[in-house]
């Protein structure tokens, strides 16, 4: 078996922004909306980076380069489909309806950042690599049992595929034939570990063969390929045809987090080459090339994005501080006697030495 042949990369718009496939499932309006999202999300990501550098927020994990995958996937979902992502999936959450100041609250250390707004069906971001993959299987399973016609989507990295939970999740999902879509954001790196030290196989999609489920490899920097493929996959999965594994081939443009220095481990040539395919300029090129986007449009979208991001920053910075007392509230549904006493003591302690 030749995996690269068996799992060809689906692509509709190439690195230069040329149409190389069928884009009949995505309207011009949709594409322009995607563009606006990608611009806003990119600006946000860069602003967050800067805020961290200024000491205004804590550790932040940038998603730049992966926006097309995150947005394209979520765009193909219904509002009550489940989303279970990792720390790097704030773009997906934002597109799903989580306000943009949430990731900032998160990096500022506010507990509320985990409280996904009620109208969004998503779990809080996951830090433990691969754990959320099993939650998605369970959510999809619950949906199937309750005949809810919902699917669950889970995002995870290339590194996550090495974890036992990845394997156990795909196996269980295939045995139970639950409506879950596994989206691997293969950004080539797990912190400093490149894909070829993570696994000996050329593709991640081929792991689907182990579970007798469908595996699809696509260009994760091409939002059209992502969106169109997902539309098709979501429909199939929703209709009960079992789980699907998607490998979205993409690239982490920035550092792993604000605490990381990728120059320690990324060869500059490879970096240079990989950056070329990044999703935002690609989409912009295509839209400009096909006359769907003028220079004026670009400026005004940039402007609007800046406003949106400014607002998110202001909201986050104006947010009331988290309190220690709150920490005791959500350990259990009810405060135990001992926790009640500890909470009281913590307040007294604070008062005594405030």
């Amino acid at each position, binding site marked *: 078996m030749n995996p690269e042949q068996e799992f060809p990369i689906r692509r509709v718009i190439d690195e230069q922004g040329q149409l190389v496939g069928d884009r009949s499932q995505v309207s011009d309006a949709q594409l322009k909306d995607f563009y606006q999202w990608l611009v806003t999300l990119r600006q946000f990501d860069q602003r967050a980076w800067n805020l961290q550098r200024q000491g205004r927020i804590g550790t932040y994990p940038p998603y730049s380069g992966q926006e097309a995958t995150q947005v394209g996937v979520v765009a193909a979902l219904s509002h009550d489909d489940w989303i279970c992502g990792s720390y790097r999936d704030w773009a997906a959450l934002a597109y799903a309806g989580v306000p943009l100041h949430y990731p900032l609250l998160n990096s500022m250390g506010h507990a509320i950042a985990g409280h996904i707004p009620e109208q969004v069906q998503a779990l809080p971001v996951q830090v433990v690599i691969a*754990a959320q993959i099993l939650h998605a299987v*369970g959510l999809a399973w619950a949906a199937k049992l*309750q005949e809810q016609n919902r699917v669950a989507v889970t995002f995870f990295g290339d590194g996550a595929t090495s974890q036992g*939970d990845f394997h156990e999740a795909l*196996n269980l999902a295939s045995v139970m034939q639950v409506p879950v879509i596994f989206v691997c954001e293969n950004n080539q790196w797990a912190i400093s570990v490149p894909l070829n030290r993570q696994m000996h196989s050329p593709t991640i999609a081929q792991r689907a063969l182990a579970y007798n489920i469908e595996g699809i490899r696509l260009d994760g920097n091409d939002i059209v390929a992502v969106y169109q493929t997902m539309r098709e996959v979501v429909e199939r999965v929703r209709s009960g045809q079992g789980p699907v594994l998607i490998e979205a081939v993409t690239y982490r443009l920035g550092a792993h987090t604000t605490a990381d220095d990728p120059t320690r481990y990324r060869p500059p040539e490879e970096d240079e080459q990989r950056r070329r395919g990044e999703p935002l300029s690609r989409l912009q090129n295509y839209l400009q090339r096909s006359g769907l986007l003028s220079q004026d449009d670009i400026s005004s979208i940039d402007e609007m994005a800046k406003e949106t991001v400014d607002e998110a920053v202001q909201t986050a910075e104006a947010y009331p501080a988290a309190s220690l007392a709150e920490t005791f509230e959500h*350990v259990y549904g009810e405060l135990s006697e001992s926790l009640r006493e500890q909470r009281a003591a913590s307040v007294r302690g604070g008062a005594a030495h405030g």
Partner: protein
Amino acid sequence: MGSLTMIQAINQALALAMERDARVMVLGEDVGRNGGVFRATDGLMDRFGRDRVVDTPLAESAIVGSAVGLAIGGMRPVAEIQFLGFIYEAMDQIGTQASRMRFRSHGRYHVPLVIRAPFGGGVRTPEIHSDSLEAIFAHIPGVKVVVPATPYQAKGLLLAAIEDPDPVLFLEPMRLYRSMREEVPDDWYEVALGQARLVQAGDHVTIVAWGPMVPVAQAAAGLVAGDGIVSEVIDLCTISPWDSSTVIESVRKTGRAVIVHEDQRQNGFGAEVAATIQEQAFLSLEAPVLRVTGYDTPFPVPMVEDLWLPDANRVADAVRQTVAY
């Protein structure tokens, strides 16, 4: 009302819960067709179907991790870990996932999940099958830990656990599965989590035990009664959150305490009980709080397990020692 063994009481509780609430489901290794290796889930698949009684692949992390999703997604999963010693495979899904979804989501989600697991010695199992691990889970905020000691308690506590909005580890002492019968009401009843049970009242010493050690504590109380020592025996029932008030009140009265657990001694849950007693009943204490426990070795081979396990004689010795102090 019937005279049931603990395993029958558990089976009945599961059937009752599934009957009453269509969201309740059972999943685990061999829980379906086989009815569980101890028959805890016997007959449930025939009665409630393959959707609600699920033989899973052999993967504990998948069992617990998917159950977290099932619970958030609206079901009420009762997962079985075939033997507690294998729960380490699901440790992350319990310790950083099930236990923290409420906390992580600042109250948006919670995980009404019960994880049942047989544990403890006295039945000559192969390696790992007899390990006691309640102390480890008692140290993890966000999960509750329950250990029944009688058929009646088992049914009522299990039903309360299934109704509880948070993850509950329900640890079943294997050696008590069939060791005694007790009258158990046929209907639904709950025994509240977090409350200790006074097994017998006494004035001279408080013996604190749970699960498999409750009958041992009772037997020890019987032995020392011959010496004129009247013991108060308390069954903790729930290890986390535990009912320290009942214990403290008792020790304030008796002035002496002996804690009995089968688990290893170092940082076993007895350590927490002893530490709390001396903190909160210091001035009442006439003698150090003693612990009678398994030794700090792995659970031993079957040939010596009876010697390794705390028995009534060892407990009685400790009681005499504390009374004579």
